């Protein structure tokens, strides 16, 4: 369940998950207000959904993840 747990962490918008973002966005996110964090997660969600819609998915330990989710998983390792 290693990948799964990391995937779940990412869905929470953890610090590691934010590491994919541009530096200035990450910096801002780390000091994020609730609104900023919500907006960040909203963008992440839109990107992930878009990848699912276009079939840009990979499988990790059987889980069907969007490419962005998988990359975040890799960065969590």
């Amino acid at each position, binding site marked *: *369940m290693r990948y*799964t*747990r990391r*995937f*779940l962490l990412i*869905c*929470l918008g953890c610090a590691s998950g934010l590491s994919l973002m541009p530096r200035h966005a990450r910096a801002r996110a780390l000091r994020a207000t609730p609104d900023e964090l919500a907006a960040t997660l909203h963008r992440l*969600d839109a990107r*992930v*959904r878009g*990848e*699912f*819609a276009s*079939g840009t*998915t990979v*499988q990790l*330990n*059987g*889980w*069907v*993840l*969007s490419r962005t989710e998988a990359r975040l998983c890799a960065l969590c390792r």
Partner: protein
Amino acid sequence: MFVDARKLSKNFTIDADVCIVGAGAAGITLARDLAARNRTVALIESGGIEYDADTQALYAGAVVGHDFTPLDRDRLRFLGGTTNHWGGSCRRFDALDLEGWPIGLDALEPFYRPAHEICQLGPYDYEPMDWSSDDARPMPAATGANLKSGVFHYSPPTRFGTVYRNDLNSAEGLSVYLNANLIDIETSDSADRVTGLRLACLDGKQFRARARHYVLAAGGIENVRLLLNANRVQKTGLGNQFDQLGRYFMDHPYVVGGATVLAAASSPEMRFFTMRPMRGATIAGYLAATDEVRRREHLPPFAISIFTLGGTGAEPAPVALPPAIRSMLSEARANKIEYYLSRAMAELEKPADWLFDKVWREPPGTYTTLYICGPDPDPQSRVTLGDGVDALGMRKIRLDWRLPDNFEQQMQRAHELLGQDLGRAGLGRVRIESSATGHDPMENMNHGHHHMGTTRMHNDPRNGVVDADCRVHGIGNLFIAGSSVFTTYACDDPTMTIVALALRLSDHLKSLDT
């Protein structure tokens, strides 16, 4: 009226306009409809009103291909046939399901509505949005989505031999001969017409039947056995001049646990798959590939249902399969699956709990899938005569059921498409189970007990056994009813389409008399 053939005088001859062999869904439907059109009908049934072990043993045969239920347990041989233990799932074929057939949906559609009533179903409505409610709704249809929603209707299920027994007994011109077994089909010297049937009881008594039209409605395996055994004139069996008889045998393989789904426990989209009463019907949702995806990906017709494993706490809850699923499985298999599901939940629930509590803000729901499909027709998947004879001296059957080598890959691809659609809709995530994840779903593979394709419908006798009117190629007055005429198999219980085809055949037989 009912006639116990054991009480007929020796060498008795039955005379009727139409003689139908087999009193299952097809035979009973056809007999009732023809009798209502003022035809005299003889309905020949091997069994009696109730189950009898000696009669049931006539189904015995050898299985040499893919694992299959013993042939003398897979079907039922008494009044009502296999409807005596069917599950009741019904669905109308769509246009793509009929691709490859010599008839289209327009030819079947007029008969589906009355078939719906005969199967005691609710409103004739297969539009998924019409079966939406506050707590159960289909996944949102999105442009470019891989899958589309559909609904199965559930019959009570109709036990044809019980529900229509009074009709059979009272219909003018209709006689049902019980305990009567077809042992030979007599033909003209050129085998272009059937001239009579030889029948026998298990006690050895023999008699005959004569009619203008003959219909075999004995099931997807037995129809073949009867034709192959009738080899006095055509040495390879009646209707088998091009070695098509018995080929393309197919059942619906299904797998429970092909994927694990994490989604909100109270998700209306997940509840859509739950069997539930609504508007005087009992229905359940499913997902199938869109026509575009089926064509693009060369996938077989399939349906995926999603059902909850129960329990949402951090500790795995006891798992019990839904009754409908459990009834499809042997006790040993059901227990095994429940054990497996419990283990899967133990592994999944804790992180899932955490995720859903934080992100979806409600307890998690853990679900599994049921995948059922109709693989492409395979001429090597076939029924032939085997060794040995039954109590009536008829040669037994040999079944070689084959599945495509890429069956599991196609199932995994179907679940991948499901994962993409659930991710796109933000409804959840899918884990495709395999031997690599430690939960090999192929261990849970079973089959639907639907025997199809062995006398397939095709305009060309080199590619099929019956024509578009269900008439055996080359034989003017011999017809076949039932799922053995299916050219392809769709992905669901064939009963309602069997009934619709029987009604269509009734129309055709009537037209021959005018």
